[in-house]
């Protein structure tokens, strides 16, 4: 006998079909990923025009609920919703009732009372988006939950690579740095597996989680074989004093920092931001033509537009559906 799994949903009475959420890359199929990337390309071509606003989500309400500081993710979700003509409401934990000790449940119920179509949530704890999804009628998009998942980051990275290199299948990506504390890495590992890219994790021993079942090494020279070097932020805000994951930032930079000397010509470099220049990435690398960091940010906008569109419309999206929406 294997251990039992708790499946409570099947006990619930039959009701309307499940709402679409984006909570984890683990919930997606390869088809889902390809559809989302295709929608993002469609939106990208629309954004090349002089008037960049589409009426697609007119009258819809997108609530951005951010319990952690964020520049690029929150701005990109907000702009994505606005480019699609949705109403947006951004709530940050600082200055809200969360400061007064309100629970996530009550915050979700309160905002849920406005009948939002989508709740985009970033939260320091694993599974917070799942909890919100169970408490409200909105479609929920995970914008980062603890060390668990950051699915839109992984999707925008796939989009960036496909645009830059023309393919995903067979690509070899080295993910370098603090894998243990990285939700970006967890989403990326699953995303690369979905699309047939090879993934190697490189970093200090204590920052490579045990039991992940991925290709792992502490040897930085392993990045030489990769088409792409994906550099993770060394999250010292997550490193408690005396935790001793690494002896010092200096030693980390010397052993695992990405310098021009460690790269092959033409190797692409990515980083989810914000960068610690001089720690995990040398400034010369960050500013080089092979660094795709700003492309990633630009991709973020169209991919998040695609995600909002997809969870709300719930189906394959072609040019036609988009054109019809534009007419409306």
């Amino acid at each position, binding site marked *: 006998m294997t251990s039992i*799994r708790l499946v409570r949903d099947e006990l619930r009475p039959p009701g309307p079909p499940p709402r679409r959420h984006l909570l984890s890359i683990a919930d997606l199929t390869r088809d889902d990923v390809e559809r989302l990337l295709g929608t993002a390309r469609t939106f990208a071509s629309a954004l090349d025009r002089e008037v960049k606003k589409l009426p697609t989500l007119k009258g819809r309400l997108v609530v951005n609920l951010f319990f952690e500081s964020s520049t690029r993710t929150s701005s990109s979700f907000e702009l994505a919703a606005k480019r699609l003509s949705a109403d947006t409401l951004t709530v940050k934990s600082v200055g809200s009732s969360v400061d007064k000790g309100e629970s996530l449940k009550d915050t979700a119920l309160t905002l849920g009372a406005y009948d939002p179509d989508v709740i985009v949530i970033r939260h320091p704890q*694993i599974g917070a988006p*799942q909890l919100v999804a169970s408490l409200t009628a909105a479609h929920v998009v995970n914008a980062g939950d603890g060390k668990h998942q950051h699915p839109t980051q992984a999707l925008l990275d796939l989009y960036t690579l496909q645009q830059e290199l023309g393919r995903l299948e067979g690509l070899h990506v080295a993910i370098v740095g603090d894998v243990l504390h990285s939700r970006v890495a967890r989403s990326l590992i699953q995303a690369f597996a979905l699309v047939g890219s090879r993934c190697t994790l490189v970093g200090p021993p204590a920052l490579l989680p045990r039991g992940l079942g991925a290709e792992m090494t502490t040897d930085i020279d392993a990045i030489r074989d990769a088409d792409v070097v994906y550099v993770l932020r060394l999250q010292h805000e997550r490193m408690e004093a005396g935790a001793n994951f690494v002896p010092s930032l200096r030693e980390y930079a010397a052993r695992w920092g990405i310098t021009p000397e460690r790269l092959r010509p033409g190797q692409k470099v990515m980083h989810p931001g914000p960068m610690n220049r001089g720690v995990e990435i040398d400034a010369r690398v960050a500013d080089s033509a092979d660094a795709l960091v700003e492309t990633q940010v630009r991709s973020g906008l169209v991919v998040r537009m695609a995600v909002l569109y997809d969870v709300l419309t719930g189906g394959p999206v072609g040019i036609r559906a988009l054109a019809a929406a534009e007419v409306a």
Partner: protein
Amino acid sequence: MTWVKDRPGANVVFRGARVVDPAEGIDATLDVRIDNGVIAAVGERLDANEHRVVDAQGLVLAPAFVDPHVHLRTPGREDEETIASGTAAAAAGGYCAIFAMPNTDPIVDSAATLGSLVETARREAEVPVGFLAAITRGQGGEELTEMAELADAGAIAFSDDGVPVASAGLMRRALQYASITGRPLALHCEEQSLSHGAHVHEGRVAAELGFAGYPSVAESVMVERDLALAGYEEQRIHLLHLSAAESVAALRRAREVGVRATAEVTPHHLVLTDDAVRSLDPNVKMNPPLRAERDRLALLDALRDGTVDAIATDHAPHARHEKEVPFEEAAFGVTGLETAFSVLYTHLVRPGLLPLVTLLERMSAGPARVFGIAVPRIAAGAPADLVLLDLDGEWRVNEQSFRSRSTNSWLLGETLNGAIALTVAAGVVVFER
């Protein structure tokens, strides 16, 4: 050393039950007659006298269960459980004795606090309840409690359950001093420098979901330390809620060289693995955490061969608002008194992984011996502590089914076999389905 409210003993005849008593070596279809709460006769076609007759054909009559490890949240969190509600839950689970941990608010570390619990138990307890007292004052890990006075006041054992005794030196002093009481130390084994801030077993699931890992070795190094100290001081210890294969292996080795240690496992560690955490359901969050399949199988082996003496529920009621939060924020612990037999019968006995007689022994005689109380048995002259089991009876676990004040069960929505049909504790019928 247990207390229960005073009620007249029952007069009952169980007719045609399959009587299974591992301690007495009985497995036969028999009648059992109880006169004034005491087993008067075990035999065939007994006279009913004026007694109530319970038709027990097709049902199993066994010694009632003993739980060495529950949390009754009294004093301090009576919203989660009281002695009345916790012992009512125990009655519904087939128990005739349960033992409550001292990590309440205030901590049970003085004879005065213990005395008030005893008074409450005499007034409210549906089934006999005993109490452990803390090893260290306030479970602070620095100063020993007055163990001699606590033992006189009725402490069955000593435990800082919930936290380990971090200092090896203090653990040694505790072992030395507890020797004058004749009571064992019940130990929560956790090296917190290895488990700090962690919620999920360190393995594939924690790595994939991003949880900080609570490795097996955080438990087993402390088990090894405490076994070594107990052996050196020649004192008796009881290892609480073992979860890791390495811990069981250490216990086996220590027993072979004569260390006097007993151990318990929980139903959830015997049935679930860390795979259940993928649901992110806070009702599968507990300390120690659910571990890997190899650990689960090692615990099951140890339960079969007697290395593990007892099944303990570690019944840990929590208010709803402490579990309706993200996993990492949720309180540790799950309830278990009302589901322990059924879930183990359904998932271990029915599929042929554990003999029924072994399960009955580890839920009754085993835990009774751990704390040195009288072993419940089905024999003329013994107090009536009996459970009537409907092995084929199906029941659905739902929030309304609980006598406990809390509903943080990992089994909500599950259908189980092995229903408790009736419980007799201390000579009184305390539960009937």
